[in-house]
């Protein structure tokens, strides 16, 4: 009997914290993020109502049908109610997943626009590297045997290839605001995961695979990139940032990186 108020109190507390948004997503920084948040809210409302009603009903039957000397009702169930309830939940759940399809499709089915800026990610235990193709627009040749982290060559860039010499390698991601970006993801050792909360995007980076991911960021700022797939003892330290810059700043940064080589 005491269980009924306990269930209700816990339910109300949970609903309160979801409504108060005490701990919440950071604001989105692109159209995809806005669409994501809308899909999340739709799901939250549907699930919130089901959650509240189910817990409330549980508390209610516990309270109402405690043993007070009555005889229990003899009933084996009600097929009609069963069918209604089943079809209603099936419709709701399937409708939710269908509504989210567009968001998933825009991330994974659509190709990156042809003018998207290519950036190659190379993740390794426990650091990030980002490579830009330089003025020639081509990623230069790399060679496993040339990898030398200490000498600042985590990709194993081959000096003999002219396309390699102008490649820019950075430990943090810099992107121009409002431009489509195409990430080409590689891992050198184990599985890592690229995650930017404000982009509402996440992708495993798998050794032996080349995984593309495209996006656009519309808000200037610095956003954190915490590795989100267990990659070993330094997993918790494998953090970098994504800086969204004005186009002019981005160009200036590239110039400066090229000059520093």
């Amino acid at each position, binding site marked *: 009997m*005491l269980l009924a108020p306990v269930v209700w109190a816990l339910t109300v507390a949970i609903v309160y914290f979801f409504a108060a948004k005490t701990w919440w997503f950071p604001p989105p920084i692109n159209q995809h993020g806005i669409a994501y948040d809308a899909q999340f809210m739709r*799901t939250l409302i549907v699930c919130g109502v089901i959650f509240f009603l189910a817990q409330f009903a549980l508390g209610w039957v516990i309270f109402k049908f405690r043993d007070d000397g009555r005889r229990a009702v003899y009933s*084996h169930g009600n097929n009609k109610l069963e069918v209604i309830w089943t079809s209603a*939940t099936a419709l709701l759940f399937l409708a939710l997943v269908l509504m989210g399809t567009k968001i*998933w499709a825009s*991330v994974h089915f659509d190709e990156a626009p042809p003018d998207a800026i290519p950036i190659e990610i190379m993740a390794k235990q426990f650091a990030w590297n980002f490579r830009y193709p330089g003025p020639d627009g081509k990623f230069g040749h790399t060679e496993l045997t040339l990898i030398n982290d200490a000498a600042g060559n985590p990709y194993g860039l081959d000096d003999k290839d002219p396309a390699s010499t102008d490649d820019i390698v950075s430990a943090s991601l810099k992107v121009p605001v409002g431009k489509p970006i195409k990430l080409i993801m590689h891992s050198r050792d184990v599985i890592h995961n690229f995650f930017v909360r404000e982009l509402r995007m*996440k992708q*495993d980076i798998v050794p032996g695979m080349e995984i593309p991911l495209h996006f656009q960021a519309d808000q200037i700022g610095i956003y954190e990139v915490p590795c989100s797939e267990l990659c070993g*003892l330094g997993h*918790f330290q494998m953090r970098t940032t994504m800086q969204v810059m004005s186009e002019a700043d981005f160009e200036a940064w590239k110039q400066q990186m090229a000059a520093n080589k």
Partner: protein
Amino acid sequence: MSSPAAHTAHHAPQGFIRKYIFSLDHKVIGLQYYFLGLFSVFVGMTLSVMMRYHMVHPDAKVAIFKLLWPGSAAGGIMTPELYLSLMTMHGTIMVFFVLTTVPQSGFGNYFLPIQIGAEDMAFPVLNMMSFWTTFLALVVMMAAFFVQGGAPLSGWTGYPPLSGIGRITGPGEGTGQTLWIVSIAIFCGASLMGAINFIATTIDLRCKGMKLMRMPLTCWTWLVTAILGLLGFAVLLAAGVLLILDRSLGTSFFIPGGLFISDQIISGHKGGSPLLWQHLFWFFGHPEVYIAILPGMGVTSHLLSTFSRKPIFGYKAMVYAILSIGFLGFLVWGHHMFMSGMNPYSAMAFATLTMCIGVPSAIKTFNWIGTLWGGKIHFDTAMLFALGFVSLFVTGGISGIFLGQPALDLYFHDTYFVVGHFHMIMGVAAIFGMFAGTFYWFPKMFGRMMNEPLGKIHFYLTFIGVYCIFTPMHFIGLAGNPRRYSDFSNVEFLANLIPVHQFMSYAAYITAGAQIIFVINLFWSMMKGPKAPANPWNATSLEWGIPSPPPFDNFAGVHPVVNHGPYEYSVPGAPTDFTMQTDPPTVPAEH
């Protein structure tokens, strides 16, 4: 439905070893599994308390860490690799040696034969072997703590290449990881033996009148769980063997070429696929979730009916829901891999099927509330845990609707939202099923009653405690907190979430401490509890028609005959409010 004549001949064994150690009696084997699980759950829980402590005090020097791990916690400070190895072992021990072992092999072994009117399992020797093989697997698993480099750090999912190359990817990835895989492979063998036995017993050894549709729902869940185990563990065994080959014999099932680790080129591997492991692992791993939770659903259904003195609402719908959960459970593994780099089109199929599996789960919840509706509810501790199960099942299940959508998983994957979700449902809901089973069947197993006031204190502390531990995980998941971080100081946005972690840690200490009440209650009641009558709950299933504890061959040579369904409570015109399954048929013949 042959009578179980095959082993009526065997006599009660003499001598301690044949009786309690290498016993062929399903009841003793069930208890052996139960106590193996009880030991494991305390190891697993202790590891989790240490992790929760470390997360909020990453720099603290703790004497006990130094004592236990003089190598990896030199000076008493837990290293990141030690944290990850505790996490790996917590997950592995809990999933395999608790959630898989107790509800199915423990309670199932003890009560499946009795509830269907059999004198033992179909293959008693196989049953004994499956227990001792499980025991061996546990010993091998625990040994991983004590080898050089310590226990593995690749998590209970053991994704290669992290788990597939050896020491070079991290301490614990040497001998520790090898022992881990070997233990899992042994465990798979044990589970396959158990699964065959459960299926054969249910199909062949039901007594006269025990039609399939008269079986208690517990038996249905044990049957379907056994089928899931048979199909799932076979695949995990294969995956484990391939991983061992990759590690030890230089094959490349899961390891691609061109790797460069710790300043070394890994030249021995070429052409493997890390995703292949994930497919094989989750083909087992998703059904595993149902292996853990289905028996809990069975126990909950059984108890809700018994303690509300009402027939179960929609028995047939419940059976079909169990069967469809079992079937659909094999078609949704890809929802663990939305972010893995697999073909994104397949995500749509997996997502749709995942939403479909929500439907039988919703049927069950609806029917549980329907069962309670109009009942005459008795709030014994066993019932409280069953009611708690329903609440946790709703809370843990509903977050699956977020995670099952690939679009939303773009953010939630590998955050604490996932940790909160699966702990609620396959962790604590399943454990509530075990507590419910313990309080309900204790009188039958030990012939004594458990202490109710202690039981209730333990229930409320645990129920509120687990909500306080696992609900906040959803919120920090919303804020983007990645899982499997030993320390939150390197990512700036995590600083705001530290107070939530502190709250969860305090809740964890209190909840873990409350489990001592349970252990005291369990062992004290075993020795000193008041004597239990044969049927303390006025329940209807077969185990309540025999003495507590049951005699060696369960029915003392009598072949029970079943005339009624399992949940005939408060039948109008009946002399009592429960009609036992073995009661003489009512005239005219039952509906």
